[in-house]
């Protein structure tokens, strides 16, 4: 660092800086900048540099201002216990501080890890192609809609989405659809599942894509997925199914019910609750291979004839195809995909299936207990649930949620008299407290 006040992350001594300036043939660093005076900045940001220790102390003070709550929250962002091995391996600097694998010969490690991640998703979805990440479930859904628009043989402009859909997800989808002149329309639900008869009446020539979720945003397991797949196929529309890799360990395989594309939140593995940070799952049928958004890792051979991995089919991507690319995505969530893969490996199929089954059992057990309380009905929908379920309360839901928060528990208020509760391995040990608090405030 050159004297005081410089960046601590540049190694230059004053004499080195002087020698370098002299080699270039200028007197000082300022002479290297070609910024006209009229637009030069001579003010201050007013940001005082601080030591590591001060910043760590400051941030930990700031974060301590988050209330100490036990969260029973889900609706698309899920916390499961992440084994220590995930942090320790993914945090290896060779992974964490590497860039996109544009020189595959010295990036074999990350490429193989991503290839393995893709393979795990292929097994979980039953679809032959999975990319190595989108940003999150919502943006993956947006990409699915624009893919549907590109591959559908006949014209049409409508993307059909379930009546029960996370509000923000619908907004993201609409933003992706706007540029492709697609419109988003929601179809009705029937007791927490897709109203298949109503959907049958709605699907038509104008339908580009039918989207459904399993489990739904309210945690319900869909019971007539194959029929939805048939409806979409008959209309030459794509069937996009939303899910996550934990649920997929036990639920019907998407390929088996006719899903053309699977999107969702793969960050259910690998990531702790991270204030909404995610990992977009994207898998699809073979025939869409050249229309897939995002990066794909493929196996190939090197000059010695040995198996080697490389980013592949890059002519789909923005750095080559520019405005004709399948998406503008460049930076993705590769490191989160690595974490998800390590987590899946650490669980193995047994652990993954056990985790998913626990999420089914715990949700049912907690719903039963809440249902016993006067003034509450749970689950609202007569369906099987994964992790979460809706609760109908006699009193205003917002007031109950606020009262529960005061008792140290966070739940969703999703309607005037509707709450939603999510239970996973992380908070299953705190359900006694939640039920007692419920009893108190209801």
């Amino acid at each position, binding site marked *: 660092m050159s004297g005081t006040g410089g960046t601590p992350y540049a190694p230059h001594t004053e004499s080195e800086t002087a020698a370098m300036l002299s080699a270039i043939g200028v007197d000082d660093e300022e002479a290297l900048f070609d910024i006209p005076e009229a637009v030069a900045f001579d003010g201050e*940001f007013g940001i005082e540099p601080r030591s590591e220790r001060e910043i760590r102390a400051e941030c930990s003070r700031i974060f301590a201002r988050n209330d100490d*709550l036990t969260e029973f929250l889900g609706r698309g962002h899920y916390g499961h216990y992440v084994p220590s091995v995930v942090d320790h391996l993914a945090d290896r600097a060779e992974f964490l501080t590497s860039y996109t694998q544009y020189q595959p010969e*010295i990036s074999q490690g990350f490429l193989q890890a991503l290839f393995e991640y893709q393979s795990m998703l292929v097994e979980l979805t039953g679809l032959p192609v999975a990319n190595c990440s989108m940003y999150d479930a919502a943006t993956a859904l947006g990409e699915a809609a624009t893919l549907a628009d590109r591959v559908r043989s006949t014209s049409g402009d409508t993307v059909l989405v379930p009546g029960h859909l*996370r509000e923000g997800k619908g907004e993201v989808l609409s933003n992706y659809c706007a540029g492709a002149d697609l419109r988003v329309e929601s179809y009705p639900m029937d007791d927490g599942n897709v109203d298949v008869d109503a959907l049958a009446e709605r699907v038509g020539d104008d339908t580009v894509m039918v989207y459904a979720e399993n489990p739904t945003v309210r945690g319900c397991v869909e019971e007539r997925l194959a029929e939805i797949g048939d409806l979409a196929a008959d209309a030459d529309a794509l069937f996009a199914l939303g899910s996550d890799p934990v649920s997929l360990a036990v639920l019907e395989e998407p390929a*088996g019910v006719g899903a053309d594309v699977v999107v969702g939140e793969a960050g259910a593995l690998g990531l702790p609750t991270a204030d909404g940070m995610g990992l977009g799952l994207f898998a699809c049928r073979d025939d869409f291979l050249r229309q897939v958004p995002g990066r794909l890792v493929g196996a190939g051979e090197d000059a010695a004839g040995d198996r080697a991995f490389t980013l592949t089919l890059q002519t789909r991507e923005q750095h080559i195809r520019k405005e004709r690319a399948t998406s503008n995505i460049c930076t993705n969530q590769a490191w989160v995909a690595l974490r998800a893969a390590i987590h899946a490996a650490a669980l193995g199929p047994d652990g993954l299936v056990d985790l998913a089954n626990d999420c089914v059992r715990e949700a049912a057990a907690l719903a039963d207990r809440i249902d016993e309380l006067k003034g509450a009905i749970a689950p609202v929908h007569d369906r099987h649930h994964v992790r979460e379920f809706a609760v109908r309360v006699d009193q205003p839901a917002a007031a109950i949620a606020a009262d529960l928060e005061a008792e140290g528990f966070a739940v969703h208020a999703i309607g005037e008299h509707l709450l939603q509760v999510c239970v996973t391995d992380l908070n299953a040990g705190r359900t006694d407290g939640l039920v007692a608090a419920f009893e108190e405030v209801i």
Partner: protein
Amino acid sequence: MIHDQADYAREGEDVHEPLLSEKDETTVDVREESPLPDDLTRDELTLPAPSEPEIARHYTRLSQMNWAIDSGPYPLGSCTMKYNPKFTEDVAADPNAAIHPDRSARASQGNLELRYRLQEFLGEIGGMDAVTLQPPAGAAGEFTGIAVAKAYHEHHGNDRSEVVIPASAHGTNFATAAMAGYDVVELPSGEDGRVDVEALEAAVGDDTAALMLTNPNTVGLFERDITEIADIVHDAGGLLYYDGANLNALLGRGRPGDMGFDVMHYNVHKTFATPHGGGGPGAGPVGVVDELAEFLPAPQVREREGGNGYETFEPEETIGKVHGFGGNWLVLVKTYAYIARLGDDGLADAAAKAVLNANYLAERIDLDVPYGPFHHEFAATAGDRDAADVAKRMLDFGVHPPTTKWPEMVPEAMLTEPTEIEGQSSLDDLAEAFNLAYADSDEALDAAPNRTTAARIDQVAAARNPRLSWQALDGE
């Protein structure tokens, strides 16, 4: 100056780490244990079930077959591979910050405060009036910014159909404009490598929604005519978009907001040294001037009246959300920590040292650099050599090569950005790697690389016969 790259370097025999699926495949009968009825479950699930020691060795060995900024020089032009300070990881790992995004604002005061502070930092640094942290990457920031511009035009009853983009721009700019539903008007580069003001005047008109500009541009040149450029675009009723990929060169010396830009994105994984993670996650916050603030994604964070804590709010004409939740939270925390660590002087010094390093390295290499004066990066030309081959040979000399064959305005381009983190001796090594590779024989270049985990990979063949999973390799 030859460095060994990894313990698994080729020594004439095939040394590779088997796939997880080649180590173990375990099939579980799902229906046996499931509390769900059979017709709602899958039959079985087949995945590897390695033990924890096997997992540790597998991923450790994979990590050893991977180049990273902590391994050595990584001078990829336009990618800004800075050292990622370790303490930022510890700050982001604070368990108190690991909250669910659907908590009430009242119960999330800590995270809201950090978001607010970061918005303020970024606003100052870019000269912008309002900032959203929601976009999860640079390209997502572009999409957000252009969607905001579109909403602004529509709100004012202007139906504009075109986005103007210089030929030298990042591919994401073109793809973003198309995704947002605009026609792309490509602006050829002027003779000096910058925007040709006359060509811009001819290209801009009533249909122009925005000009997307990177400044300094992708060969490191500052757009000296930026004031005139801004006037031309604004006079036509268009907006000026700043691609923040090269903001690292301007820190403390120039702010997009002062140059007439209306909307910009920040690449925090470039400018503010958050780790690239093998391709992501990054974050692409977007800053706008006052006139555009009401269109930003919801929710935004602000101080409560009286300075009593923080709250979220929905901008009046919001475009809605661009990410399912609040973006890449962990990355945003690291961004805050980095900016706080450097402060005003550190940020300005980071820019100065980045520009010093690029100029010093360019001085040291035998390749021509056609355009200048450049700032934090330069595009050397490999002349009659193939830039990609020179790059492969550089791998043998223990460095990561620059970005090759882009931008196209420089023939056989080697776009080089050493960043501020290399010292003089490291830059001398890097220059030697350039010069040795550039001067090497055609045979040596064709045969390169020789000291890497894999020999030259045939990417064309891999694309012709796509095998994208271990399932696809079965039976071969």
